[in-house]
């Protein structure tokens, strides 16, 4: 994958901003993830050059934490909460339904790059169980039968 030069420059800058902090690797990775939506191996190598942390170790960290992604995510990231409070209220059915409609599994992105589904563990919105969030907007007490309507709202926004 070819990474644009200005992105590389920006990532170097992010590294520089944190160079005086003790062990800033995860802080840097979080900033890159938030800004670009993923941390590909090419950028990990850049971070390695800047911080002196071996690239293998960085790869180890990136793949350890669920917050980091090696591939770009869809325009809309759907989080289906599978925390206990949501699970006992049938969140699994909601997740299954979204997967069936979009034809992808949790962790995957649709071919058109529109949606990514992720099963997450507790968003702390247990009173709204089962909860689904799309790019941070929380849909409370979602029933499997309402999923279509919610997805269509986003599809029509994109003219699809």
């Amino acid at each position, binding site marked *: 994958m070819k990474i644009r030069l200005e992105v590389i420059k920006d990532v170097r800058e992010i590294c520089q901003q944190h160079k005086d902090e*003790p062990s800033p690797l995860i802080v840097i*990775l979080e900033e890159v993830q938030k800004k670009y939506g993923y941390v590909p191996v090419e950028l990990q190598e850049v971070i390695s050059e800047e911080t002196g942390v071996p690239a293998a170790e960085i790869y180890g*960290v990136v793949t350890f*934490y669920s917050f980091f992604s090696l591939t770009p995510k869809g325009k809309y990231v759907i989080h289906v909460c599978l925390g*206990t409070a949501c*699970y006992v209220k049938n969140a699994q*059915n909601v997740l299954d339904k979204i997967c069936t409609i979009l034809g992808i599994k949790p962790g995957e992105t649709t071919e058109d790059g529109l949606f990514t589904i992720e099963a997450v563990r*507790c968003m702390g*919105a247990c009173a709204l169980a089962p909860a689904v969030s799309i790019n941070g907007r929380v849909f409370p007490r979602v029933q499997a039968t309402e999923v279509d309507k919610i997805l269509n709202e986003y599809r029509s926004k994109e003219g699809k």
Partner: protein
Amino acid sequence: MEKILNPEALDQKIAECTEKLNDKLAGKGGKRAILVCGGTGCLANDSQPIFDKIAEELKARNLEDKVSVTRVGCFGMCSQGPFVKILPEDTLYCKVKPSDVERIMTEGIEGGKIIEDLLYVDPVSGEKIVHQSDIPFYKKQQKVALHGVSTIDPLVIDEALGCDGFKALRKVLTSMKPQEVIDEVLKSGLRGRGGGGFPTGRKWQFAANVNAPQKYIVCNGDEGDPGAFMDESMLEGNPYAVVEGMEIAGYAFGATEGYFYVRAEYPVAVARLKNAIAEMRKAGLIGKNILGTGWNFDVHLREGAGAFVCGEETALLNSIEGKRGMPRPRPPYPAIKGLWGCPTCVNNVETLAQIGYIIRVGGENFAKVGTEGSKGTKVFALGGKVNNVGLVEVPMGTTLRTLIYDIGGGIPGGKKFKAIQTGGPSGGCLTEKDLDTPIDYDTLVARGSMMGSGGAIVMDEDNCMVDVAKFYMDFICDESCGKCSPCRIGTKRIYELLTEIVEGRGTIETLEELKDLAKITKNNSLCALGQTAANPISSTMANFYDEYLAHIQDKKCPAHVCKSLSRYYIDPEKCKKCSACARACPVNCIKGVPGKEPYVIDQSKCIKCGTCMGTCKFGSIIHE
């Protein structure tokens, strides 16, 4: 805010802010106050637009001199949110929508009327309750760790100063030796609220006894138990109290730097904590020469990156150090060798939130509440199949019955209580027979569960306990860091065995194998994650063995949850031949002739999604 240079200046500031806050809450001079809940649950339910609209309306109606509006932290009774509370009357409106704001302003604020349909309805008596203080949910609670949450504006340091903030910090810095602080906490009997239940004072004492140039205090805000949000609410509602607790801990055992480690999944908590740290820095309550006493303390904030195991203290320290969050063998304990090799105490958010109170009232007074071995109060996140889902703080020793029925308002829909899971994926379930047990650290362990961080998930007759056990094991498999084989492989094999059972392939031998594996994983794992991983299995097997047997011998799931063991069929007598189910079926497995022949589900194609059952208006679809 100007820097507070000495203890006397702080006293004056506290006096001013206390008067101001008390006046606001008491409605002095006829000025009323509206509080809007700004906890994560309510924010997800439009509480921000409600707040904005109220502010807008106050301006438009020229009421700004007569009524104030504040966004506060979590009210606790999250399933009834968003909340709008009117003071000094103490009128509480529940499930408010942005479209209700106009009525609240016109009829409530200007018209002096009570808006009946926004009041809380008691699920037991059906009675409408006007005042928050009369609602049973709040009556049996005692707020210590949650002090100030749902009262103060968490973004305004003055409100924290008006709500007992920093009095304890002043007291320790000006009149107590570090050892006296530790002694006070020892006297209080406070035990770690994160799950371990280790006496906080003893932990501090270990670190104090080590002579080292650099020590750290770390606040564990990596609340990983799915279904628990106590720490989140404290950080969102009154972050100042937690930072103050951290500073007192640092003073007590000689740390001059503190790290907060908070889940990235809690953006609101992170933002409010960041703001609190910045405000305290401006006020001179963090930094060099605090209150002119010559004592220095600095605070940093690190966000987690999504790993449950980082709730384990040594894994957390590795994560702060920028490494994979894998636990370290203990000993050496962090109090001897922790962050970057320096003596470190890791304390939970709720533990630190209790410290200020202990210093203010004294350890002995704190210890008056609670049971023999567990002192003070505990915050629980009550969730699942209970009417009042939310956050509750009760004295140690409260019974589960009080928690679930008096405070929680019982089980919704007239369903039967089945179990309550405490301690999250590391804990166990308690049943009907345990309802009158006073809950504390020791009684819960004696009954095969544990306190954990305070997650309490209620389950009813519709939940399958084998499925719940499998759910927890799936979680643990996902979150096992992979460092030690008993946990990495053991949990995976347990998960596979449970899958066999829920898919109808289990035998009696499977159960024996499960028991063995549970023991092996428990005895041989490196950290608490693996050591406790099998608890949900052991406890559901102990309490619901017949459910396991039903899956294995009768190939039935009594709660109709496990898809492989259940089926949907249409009662031909009741079928109205309307074709609604066939049209709704996502896999086209229902056939019939409209108006002529009753519909039939092709069992070989059915994916058991239940859509047909939701569609049929005549109750002719049966699930067994």
